[in-house]
């Protein structure tokens, strides 16, 4: 977590938002997307993370992946706080449609409606969706 302390970025700070739309397994987007979030934080940027659609499954508690021979990488989301990624949001409608609530999640998130997330997107400099 302190790997990047000696390597501080001295440039401008922009607002980066990462939109996670896909389930954690089935495709590599969630896993490789998380890497980008951590690197962006290491560059001292203003990072937000949003979980929408099946992306909310990425932060579902109690993932058991041995049956599909995939590494359960959901504990990595707990490292976000150590990288000072504190703006983490999940879409209310996506959680509700999947019968999920904040109690089902591996990290604390702020739950926002799709309209509120749209407003948040309006205020970003860079939006990347995985």
């Amino acid at each position: 977590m302190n790997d990047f302390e000696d390597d501080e970025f001295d440039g401008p700070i922009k607002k980066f938002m990462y939109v996670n739309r896909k389930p954690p397994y089935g495709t590599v987007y969630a896993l490789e997307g998380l890497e980008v979030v951590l690197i962006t934080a290491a560059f001292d940027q203003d990072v937000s993370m949003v979980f929408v659609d099946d992306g909310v499954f990425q932060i579902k508690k109690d993932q058991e992946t041995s049956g599909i021979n995939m590494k359960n990488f959901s504990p990595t989301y707990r490292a976000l706080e150590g990288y000072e990624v504190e703006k983490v949001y999940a879409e209310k409608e996506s959680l509700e449609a999947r019968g999920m609530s904040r109690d089902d999640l591996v990290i604390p998130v702020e739950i926002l409606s799709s309209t509120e997330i749209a407003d948040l997107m309006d205020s970003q400099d860079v939006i990347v969706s995985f």
Partner: protein
Amino acid sequence: MKLGILVNEGPFTHQASDTAYHFTKAALKKGHEIVRVFFYHDGVSNANKLADPPSDDRNLVALWSSLANEYGIELIVCVAAAMRRGINDDLLAKGFKISGLGQLVEAGILGDKLVTFGD
């Protein structure tokens, strides 16, 4: 305008790389600056010089190379994504370089916009 380009899909299964190529070329022709093109996920396969599609099909790997040659733009392939998929320096087509994800973040910082092409 200064543009960063992110290509997230390989050259032949998805149209993403074709669209990214045409977009990048059109932007350059209009006088925009391309900070760099960054290849991530299966997008790293755009750099594989062994790609050898039938002669009546477009060869995106070669098209990217010639675009880099013509306009001097940077084509950067993510090292971690490339290693996972067996792409190394020996396999890189002309104009491509392997580097870290920091290059993507920097493209977002330096560009007026970062434009993503993918699924």
